[in-house]
């Protein structure tokens, strides 16, 4: 859609933003010392050390296991949810639609902290269960909880992509199946879901990545020594050596990338094979909803149960913690209600600045990020192969690296890439890190909107002599403006929920709530403050959601 020179320029910039940090990690992984050390030499020693370390293999294996498990849970649940929402007469859909996204819009570290208060060994739901059954039928610190909660938390990813795909497909085949007597279940599994395989595969991939790089949950809930994950192993590496052992950390990151990259290729291959069979594309007629009949309320109950476990339980825990001085089985909560944590937050300039920065990064930064995603999206729009293909792979790479490490790599970029150094202590550094981390997500939002624009409109404009810029300005942008608005809101919420990528970039001027949550939960700071900050963070996300609802923005991938 741009001239090829412009397009190359855009691609190179986008590629650089992605490749600089990732390239640094690769480079660092084959050096004997931190890359800035004078003694650094090319060496495979980091890999040898890691591979010979007996702690590495179980951690790797467990991380793969948790990624598979998370995907195995999130995929079916998310797909079922998408089917129920897009294709059936499930009750209260309009209200449910935005609520379903809440678990991915909430920083997982906040959810994890909430689970401790709500459902930990002395949590208030646990106490209730103990009185009811005489024991607590769950343990949030067990590996099983990591699987289940990790899986449940990532359901919205699958839901987002699959629901969007379903909504773009006509329902005629499904109706045909219904008419010939297939049950709703059979329609879903034999007709609808096979048609949206690309969305399933893609979202499954994202969930798998999220599983491998899972950080917030194991940080707080992963105290079990029998089940260590790679992200925790990274912690240990830094602890074992006093001098920063960046080469080892980088080597582990490279291993993670090498495990996940083949999956991206696999995904492409699956989709290529698939495409030959998918005969229905574009838009077809009206969509009719399948009537669930007596199953309506059961389906609703299941959806609500998921939402309660994944969102209501932990959030009620963190909200409660924010408003009490202390808690526990010996405490009558009514005696210890307080607003001091919030007063404390608002009396502390650093924290107020963090709140303001978080809003600015979300609102202004979100808009700028959407602008970038749009420009890149337009550059690859209707392009096949070559650059577009490379970029497709590239945007996913940052998702395969734990967020903390991406943040560290960006610290290096801002320290050692001369033109960028003055920007390190400005919100720009955080913005760039966030924009790269959420690139895949953002590009998907934009390309989804762009695909809604019929090629014939662009072609006719070109035929009557409009310049490329004119086509974009007068045809494409007006048509996708609604989609851009939706993208802006979603990116706003994504940026508010990001907590790991900014930790290493934290300095005066770049404080954001997410990074402070990590720092506070690591050090000696009181949990009340952490909880109050979390609640403020949730409130920001809630405001975004409320605006989205008000404008009737369809929140879909």
């Amino acid at each position, binding site marked *: 859609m741009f001239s090829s020179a412009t397009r190359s320029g855009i691609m190179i910039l986008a590629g650089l933003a992605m490749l600089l940090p990732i390239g640094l990690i690769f480079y660092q992984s084959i050096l004997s010392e*931190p890359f*800035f*050390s004078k003694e650094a030499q090319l060496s495979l020693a980091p890999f040898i050390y890691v591979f010979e370390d007996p702690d590495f293999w179980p951690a790797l294996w467990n991380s793969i296991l948790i990624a598979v498990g998370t995907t195995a849970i999130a995929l079916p649940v998310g797909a079922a949810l998408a089917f129920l929402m897009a294709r059936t007469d499930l009750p209260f859909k309009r209200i449910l639609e935005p609520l379903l996204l809440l678990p991915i819009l909430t920083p997982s570290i906040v959810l994890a902290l909430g689970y*401790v*208060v709500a459902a*930990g*060994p*002395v949590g208030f739901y646990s106490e209730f269960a103990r009185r009811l059954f005489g024991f607590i039928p769950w343990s949030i*610190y067990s590996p099983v909880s990591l699987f289940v909660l990790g899986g449940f938390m990532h359901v919205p990813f699958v839901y987002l992509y699959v629901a969007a795909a379903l909504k773009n497909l006509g329902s005629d085949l499904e109706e045909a199946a219904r008419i010939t007597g297939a049950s709703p279940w059979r329609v879903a599994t034999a007709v609808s879901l096979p048609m949206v395989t690309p969305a399933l595969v893609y979202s499954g991939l994202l969930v798998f990545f999220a599983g491998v790089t899972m950080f917030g949950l194991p*940080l*707080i809930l992963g*105290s079990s*020594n029998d089940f260590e994950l790679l992200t*925790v192993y990274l*912690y*240990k590496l*830094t*602890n*074992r*050596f*006093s*001098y*920063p052992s*960046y080469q080892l950390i980088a080597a582990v990151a490279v291993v993670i990338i090498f495990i996940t990259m083949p999956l991206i290729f696999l995904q492409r291959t699956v989709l290529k094979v698939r495409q030959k069979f998918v005969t229905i594309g574009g838009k077809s007629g009206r969509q009719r909803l399948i009537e669930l009949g007596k199953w309506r309320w059961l389906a609703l109950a299941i959806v609500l149960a998921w939402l309660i476990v994944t969102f209501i339980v932990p959030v009620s825990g963190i909200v409660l913690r924010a408003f009490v*001085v*202390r*808690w*526990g*089985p*010996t405490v009558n909560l009514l005696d210890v209600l307080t607003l001091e944590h919030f007063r*404390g937050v608002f009396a*502390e*300039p*650093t*924290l107020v600045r963090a709140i303001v920065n978080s809003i600015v990064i979300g609102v202004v930064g979100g808009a700028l990020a959407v602008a970038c995603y749009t420009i890149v999206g337009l550059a690859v729009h209707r392009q096949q192969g070559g650059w577009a293909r490379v970029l497709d792979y590239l945007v996913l790479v940052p998702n395969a690296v734990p967020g903390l490490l991406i943040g*560290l790599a960006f*610290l*290096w970029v801002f*320290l050692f890439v001369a033109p960028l*150094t003055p920007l*390190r*202590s400005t919100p720009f550094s955080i913005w760039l890190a966030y924009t790269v981390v959420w690139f895949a997500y953002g590009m998907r939002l934009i390309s989804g909107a762009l695909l809604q624009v019929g090629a014939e409109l662009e072609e006719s404009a070109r035929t009557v002599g409009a310049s490329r810029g004119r086509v974009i300005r007068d045809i494409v942008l007006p048509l996708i403006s609604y989609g851009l608005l939706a993208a802006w809101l979603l990116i706003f919420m994504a940026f508010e929920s990001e907590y790991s990528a900014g*930790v*290493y970039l*934290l*300095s*005066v001027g770049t404080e954001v709530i997410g990074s*402070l949550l990590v*720092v*506070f*939960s*690591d*050090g*000696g*700071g*009181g*949990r*009340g*403050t*952490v909880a109050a900050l979390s609640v403020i963070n949730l409130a920001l996300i809630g405001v975004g959601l409320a605006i989205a609802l008000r404008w009737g923005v369809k929140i879909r991938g």
Partner: protein
Amino acid sequence: MKSTIFALSACLALTTPAWADQPDYYPSDYGKMVEAAKAEGRVVLYITLDPYAVTPFVSEFEAMYPGIKVEVNSMSSAPMHSRFISEEAAKGATADIMISSGMDLQVQLVNDGHALAYESAELSHIPKWASWNNQAYSVTIDPVIFVYNKGFLTPEQVPQSYAQIPEVLAKNADTYRGRIALGDVDRGGVPLLFGIMGSVTDPNYWDIFGAVGKLKPNFIPGSSAVIESVSSGENILSLNQMGAYVLPVIEKNPDVAMVLPSDYTLGNSRVMFIAKSTPHPNASKLFVDFMLSKRGQTVLMNGSKMYPIREDIEGPYTAKSLMATLGTAFRPIPLSPELLANLDPKRRTEFIERWKRTLTGKN
């Protein structure tokens, strides 16, 4: 009280030249340094304390020296160490002042030549153990203590010393099983430092922790998580926590209490040094003197709830009170290059392995 001091000092600052506030034993040309510091205008602080604890002494300093702004960066000890080294290597902007409870990491940085030597004007007024080579200073000292929840334990169920642990725990095994929280030496530099120092100090260290290991302790990274878990009753006892992190919790939860182990109580310093690369040497020196001064240390005690190191400060939570209570059982971890031995990866790995074997009964 704090606001009165604040207002008072603000008034003083307005009416008299700032150096007039200085104690009489400061060098006569100290005023020149103050002027030079004001010309520099700011000092950048990296510190392992959350903003609440930092604000009181920073406001006090800024009130004392109007025109010098302190930029505070709160972070945890390992990222702070990584960041400082990276920034130094890139010759980028970094801290002027580093204050961290990761004593060994700080000593390493000083030993590697990252510190600016400065003989503090307060040197003769702080304990000998609180300074090293005019490069590193101890600002506060935390007793390494036991913390427990009174709601679940009677007084005789609480060990009062390390030596008592095996017996008391064995007697109350059912009470304690699965409800002891320990900082994870495998995931945190500070728990590892306490572990190694404990094993050096106490010949029975491994037997004592072996007794703890029999009761399925929980390993939790992060002090705030450990202390919160004891406060809520999820766990009822934790060993080797920093006193200053427990004090504010005791204030809010009368069920939480601490024990200063009577056989030995380690003292962990927050170590401060000036970065050699500092573009604000005068403001940094001023800040160091302030932190060690009676005025600064008093605010540390009253405002930040930290244990000051100066012996001329009266209060229940000071280095002096610890000495008075514990006598020779109080063992400040020496601020010296001896700590570097702790940083040897082999030594660390060996300790971690043995610790895991001892506490989990597994390899």
